């Protein structure tokens, strides 16, 4: 079956819905294709807030926000992106409020703001109240509000459609192929512009805050087609994952005054970040936690985690401002955070890297910023690069509204001057072949088994700390897993809701993005932000103040090109907190 829409957005999370909304406001005919039902995308799990220099609680400036973002990204952040972002996120938050988003309020009626890791006043002197929040379900509220607006604007949704291919004709994006879960039918979508907003890929790791559905589908599909993935080596671990599950406990808990403690009861962050302590950026805190455990000061019988202590906070602060994380802790661990500290360890959380784009979300194919006409990306799937080597908390929600909006507006305007290209059944071929191969396979390999091996090995060899030796080992593991993936077989041969087939496709994507990540990490011989090489512990601006573009060249090989970091207002300096 064929469909036609001027702008087609892949993904119905915050970035996808923001894109769709602003494209529709520009007058475009917009459709959203999502493998989930609406409001089930992972933006809904974001808890703590959206950072914007509103200055509602204390003095703040967009320049401070920009500085924090650049420094937080260990100077790999493109400063033009950070500037656009820090300015426009203020307007974006106000617009969300006008759309009805139920932010928490100050007594004077303005939007309430709390502290968050790495956000400071006066160029790093002290933490600042910058994160606008709605209890500890800010992402949920953003997702709901944007979906509500999409309903208001009658935007077309294709729910539970799994995109299997992006059609590029002569280097121009022309359409999509998607597999309808309910029927097993392949659909052809003709578009004048396509926006990829399909989210991250935390499921490459065993311990992750990410949804089961975050499998890097579109990153992998573009990577297979010879387009690059940028800065994949920078993968963020969020310090406070509920141990051992990895469910996220917001950094807002530390913003409200929560403290990390080791087995001796020490507030160990005083040693690692004397100025802002527990509110240091995530890469620093995650590494500090691992070091405490490694040096024998971990908690519990196995000394394998640390504690997040909220017991000194007034119980009403926990109940009013952190209700959801308290509930997680009670349900999944039987721990009441009002009375006892909560076991935590870092959890795989956010891909700083992804599909490279311009400031308007246009996908680029090389280090010269050559645009792929008609193709856009926004949100976690994309890399503009706002987050550089390490994203500050709350900047993901800001990213998806600011750059989702820009992508939506640009895509709609681009589409106006384009004609549709008549696509044929032929364009379904590659997807059909891939699906038939999995369905008809007589192999013995199982999806769940291979996925578990991938997730464990990525955890062991390519997580918070890396070494050349471990990464080389993982290159070999990935080769073997990819080989075994060719012999994957599934039980379900049916057409209706063949979720096993979808999981098999997703496993393929997980393997591809893991490949890009591990090779990029092995290639970068320095430590910067979330990429901590124990064999190269220093940041090396001389050689590595540049973005990685990883290209698949087949047969388990990856080639690299480099893009200069856009500098400007802030010279790279040593990063201390």
């Amino acid at each position, binding site marked *: 079956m064929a469909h036609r829409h001027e702008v087609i957005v892949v993904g119905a999370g915050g970035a996808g819905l923001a894109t769709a909304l602003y494209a529709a406001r520009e007058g475009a005919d917009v459709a959203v294709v999502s493998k*989930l*039902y*609406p*409001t*089930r*995308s*992972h933006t*809904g*799990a974001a808890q703590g807030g959206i950072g914007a220099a509103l200055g509602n609680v204390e003095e703040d400036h967009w320049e401070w926000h920009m500085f924090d973002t650049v420094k937080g990204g260990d100077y790999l952040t493109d400063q033009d992106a950070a500037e656009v972002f820090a300015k426009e996120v203020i307007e974006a938050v*106000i617009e969300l*409020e*006008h*759309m*009805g988003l*139920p*932010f*928490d*309020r*100050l*007594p*004077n*009626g*303005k*939007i309430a703001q709390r502290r968050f890791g790495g956000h400071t006043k006066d160029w790093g002197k002290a933490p600042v109240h910058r994160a606008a929040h*709605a209890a500890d*379900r800010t992402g*949920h*509220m953003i997702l*709901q509000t944007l979906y*509500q*607006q999409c*309903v*208001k604007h009658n935007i077309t949704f294709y*729910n539970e459609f799994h995109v299997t291919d992006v059609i590029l004709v002569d280097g121009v994006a022309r359409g999509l192929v998607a597999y309808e879960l*309910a029927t097993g039918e392949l659909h052809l979508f003709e578009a004048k512009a396509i926006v990829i907003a399909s989210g991250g890929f935390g499921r490459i790791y065993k311990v992750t805050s990410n*949804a*089961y*559905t975050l499998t890097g589908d579109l990153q992998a599909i573009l990577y297979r087609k010879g387009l690059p993935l940028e800065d994949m080596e920078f993968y963020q671990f969020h310090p406070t994952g509920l141990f051992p*599950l990895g*469910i996220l406990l917001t950094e807002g808990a530390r913003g409200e005054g929560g403290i990390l403690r080791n087995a001796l009861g020490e507030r160990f962050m005083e040693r690692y970040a004397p100025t802002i302590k527990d509110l240091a950026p995530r890469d620093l805190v995650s590494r500090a936690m691992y070091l405490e455990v490694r040096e024998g000061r971990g908690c519990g019988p196995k000394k394998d985690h640390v504690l997040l202590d909220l017991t000194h906070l007034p119980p009403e602060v926990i109940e009013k401002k952190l209700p*959801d994380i308290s*509930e*997680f802790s009670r*349900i*999944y*661990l039987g721990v009441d955070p009002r009375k006892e500290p909560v076991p935590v360890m870092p959890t795989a959380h956010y891909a700083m890297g992804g599909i490279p784009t311009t400031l308007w979300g246009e996908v680029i194919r090389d280090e010269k910023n050559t645009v792929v006409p008609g193709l856009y990306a926004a949100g976690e799937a994309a890399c503009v690069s706002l987050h550089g080597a390490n994203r500050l908390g709350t900047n993901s929600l800001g990213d998806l509204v600011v750059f989702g909006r820009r992508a939506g507006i640009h895509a709609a305007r681009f589409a106006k001057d384009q004609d549709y290209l008549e696509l044929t059944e032929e364009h379904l071929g590659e997807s059909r072949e891939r699906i038939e191969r999995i369905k008809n396979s007589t192999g013995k390999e*199982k*999806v*769940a*088994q291979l996925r578990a091996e991938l997730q464990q090995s990525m955890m062991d060899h390519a997580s918070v700390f890396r070494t050349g030796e471990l990464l080389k080992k993982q290159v070999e593991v990935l080769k073997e897993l990819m080989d075994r993936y060719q012999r994957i077989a*599934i*039980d*379900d041969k*049916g*057409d*209706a*809701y*063949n*979720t*096993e087939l979808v999981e098999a496709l997703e496993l393929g994507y997980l393997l591809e993005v893991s490949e890009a990540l591990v090779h990029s990490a092995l290639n970068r011989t320095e430590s910067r932000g979330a990429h901590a090489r124990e064999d190269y512990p220093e940041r090396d601006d001389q050689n590595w103040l540049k973005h990685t573009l990883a290209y698949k060249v087949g047969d388990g090989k990856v080639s690299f090109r480099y893009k200069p970091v856009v500098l400007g207002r802030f010279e790279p300096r040593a990063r201390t907190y």
Partner: protein
Amino acid sequence: MQVTLKILRFDPAKDARPRWQTFQVEAEPWDRVLDLLHKVKGEQDGTLAFRRSCGHGICGSDAMLINGRNRLACKTLVKDLGSVITVEPIRGLPVEKDLIVDMEPFFAAYRAVKPFLINDEPPPERERLQSPQERERFDPGTKCILCAACTTSCPVFWTNGTYLGPAAIVQAHRFLFDSRDRGKRERFKALASASGVWRCRTAFNCTEACPREIPVTQLIEEVKREILFDRF
């Protein structure tokens, strides 16, 4: 521990009606029901179909009938259920395969109440002000994750498929009591209609079923009162 998992299966290509199938699964007391379903799917029978996404009670994908009650599989632990666990699809929506139901009627009801802020007054340059008390007034409804556990536990919804159902009314409540909203009368069209709030028989099933502890019945009553005492 060994757990007996009884799942109501239905494959539209093979089954005329749903059938029970039993699996033995090794489980820990702190495992989620979702973990058991993944074990069955990954190790015993890949054809088992169910929805899930976030895995910790935020996305609302995996609402199902577990030991006779509507719950989220990712928020329900083995230790609270015992060694025999039954799992069925939520009731009142057409079953498409195994634990997957057609959500379209549910979302149609959602759309009918105009679930978006209605206010045509030109917005100020900065935020519209709202006191913490005004914000608190509609807080419960903002927790709703649209999982359908409430609506599909409602006996009126089972017998009358046109009833808007608790979830849609909760969404309406969220806007009716928002000091910024001006869409009251527009929403009343659906809410005060024959399929609206007056169908509610105050059975409290919805409140018991809500995995987010929203006082659903109370919110429905507040909407009824708002319609009743509205002065035209």
